[in-house]
């Protein structure tokens, strides 16, 4: 949850979530609303592909079954944690990320996210710190720009997220790699669904 707090400090909201150590804890977290559960482990980068994500768990029995199933699958990925999150409303999945480059220092990235990241490899990079122009130019560079920036508000939201990420990277030199993926973009806002920070 340290990652979540760090994002919060820079004004990046991430979706409400909690580590859960038991099926009971997961049910309590859900409190009647649909949730997502995922296994977090350094040994698994592609969570969806590895069957480590369960979406849209509304009923208590579904939550309990998913918890048991994920715990079973995660055995070979120790150490691991299971995280429960509010189910994000559907939208366009983006990735926002950063990395410390040995040559040029911190760089920031945006691209088409979720499961499409490596299929389409549609992304743009810049050296930090970036300006608002740079952020806009990054969006402009995406092949999917017409899908991603369907109105002025979406463009502004993404530019803001990029500027905040650039600032976060610049002020936290220890970060080697950062993935916010997916960041789900909707007409009325966004949800940072998954965070990965490597220090």
């Amino acid at each position, binding site marked *: 949850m340290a990652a979540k707090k760090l994002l919060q400090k820079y004004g990046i909201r991430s979706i409400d979530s909690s580590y859960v150590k038991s099926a009971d804890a997961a049910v309590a977290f859900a409190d009647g609303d649909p949730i997502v559960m995922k296994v977090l482990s350094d040994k698994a980068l592609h969570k969806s592909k590895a069957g480590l994500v369960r979406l849209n768990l509304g009923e208590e029995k579904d939550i309990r079954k998913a918890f048991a199933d994920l715990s079973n699958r995660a055995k070979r990925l120790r150490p691991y944690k299971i995280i429960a999150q509010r189910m994000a409303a559907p939208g366009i999945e983006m990735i926002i990320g950063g990395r410390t480059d040995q*040559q040029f220092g911190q760089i920031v990235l945006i691209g088409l996210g979720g499961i499409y990241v*490596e299929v389409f490899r549609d992304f743009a*990079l810049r*050296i930090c710190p970036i300006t608002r122009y740079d952020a806009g130019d990054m969006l402009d560079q995406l092949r999917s720009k017409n899908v991603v920036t369907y109105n002025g508000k979406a463009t502004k939201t993404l530019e803001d997220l990029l500027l905040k990420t650039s600032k976060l990277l610049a002020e936290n030199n220890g970060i080697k790699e950062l993935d916010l993926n997916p960041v789900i973009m909707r007409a009325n806002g966004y949800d940072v669904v998954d965070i990965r920070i490597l220090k």
Partner: protein
Amino acid sequence: MNLEPMLAPRSVAVIGASNNPDKVGHVILQNYIDAGYEGKLFPVNKNAERIGNLESFKSVLDIGEDIDLAVIAIPAPLVPQVMEECGKAKVKTVIVVSGGFAEIGETALEEKIARIAIKHKMALVGPNCLGVMNPRSRVDTLFLPTYKLGRPTVGGVSFMAQSGAVGSTILDLISSEGFGLSKFISYGNAAYADEVDILEYLIADKDTKVIVMYLEGIKRPKEFLELARRAAKAKPIVVLKAGKTAEGAAAAHSHTAALSGNYETHMALFRQFGFTIADDLSDLLYYAKILASESAAATGNRVAVITNGGGAGVLAADAVASTSNLKLAEFSAETVKALKKTMPILSSMRNPLDLAGDANYAIYGNAIDILQKDKNVDMFIIVALFQTPGADDRLANELVRYKNSIGKPMIAISIGAAYTQSHKTMMESAGLPVYDSPSSAAKALSELLKYSEYKRRRR
């Protein structure tokens, strides 16, 4: 590092000069003579009394005059001692042409010559390089005979490359273009002078209007980044980076790291700081040509195409529409009215404006007169096919005249063999860039617009 004495030396010592025409040192000396170098020329050779018609010296220490540049073309193991002598003789700059250093694993030897250069405050280019060329001061350290490798005319484009082979190929190609060369620097292993020093020099050089660079790696990335932040504000820089596929993908823990490899990061830097990115050697020439000639900055993205061949006009229009930032201009009502009045025989008054196969210089002139007043037109592509009956040297002259007075970016497309080429050369040397394909023309205009916008933004 002051490279000026290297590029405009008043005196040059060629160490390793030889009477044997197979030796590199022979070719270098001969090229100086052939180029008509007017400064003092001193061959240095341990065993010769004379080289050609020139008195030869056993050592650079025996010359007894100020030496601005020593070109060293002797076996690598002998280089350190000779460089020490250069240091003692107060030689200002040194080019080590010889190979046999870090490129074959002899890093200690390379570090040694770098230390000698630093100790004696001598600028050093090389080793393992072609060296430099400056047609203005008639400096030419290339060991490639002039009958094999064309030498460009004097112009505003400077070229820097690590690779000697790419460098000389580009030089050969530039020699058949109209825009001409300011400085050529092939810096090989970059033991001392590297990308940062050379780029800094070319930015400051008043004869350099456009910098073209072929990069494999960057020796001092942090310093390069700092320089890059202001470099393209000063003048256009066209860059071709090799190594798109060479990357050994390091174990990445995140998607971000998996995507943002070494090549991609370089590209990001170039785009962010207004460099013009070339994907190919031919792009280097296309972009250098327009950036060197274009006195008018692009103020908008709407292109008018005027043609004497319907098909070529449509191809040019397609190429414009295929770029990420250009579009075809829509002519204003006044323009259409004026065109109808002046050129009633035309079938269409739309863009691309087809003047038909019998259009001569006067018809082109009428069309450009009308279109240059149209506020919906920001740039011009003039397709001039010289195979047609009406196109001749008067058309070439007329286009050059408009180019110099129109106040908006203008380029030409002429496709063809000998007759076309002679007109192309004429137009280019008078400052009108000519392209031999619609796609290269449209790409060039597209890059000009990007650069103009960068300049406006970062002013």
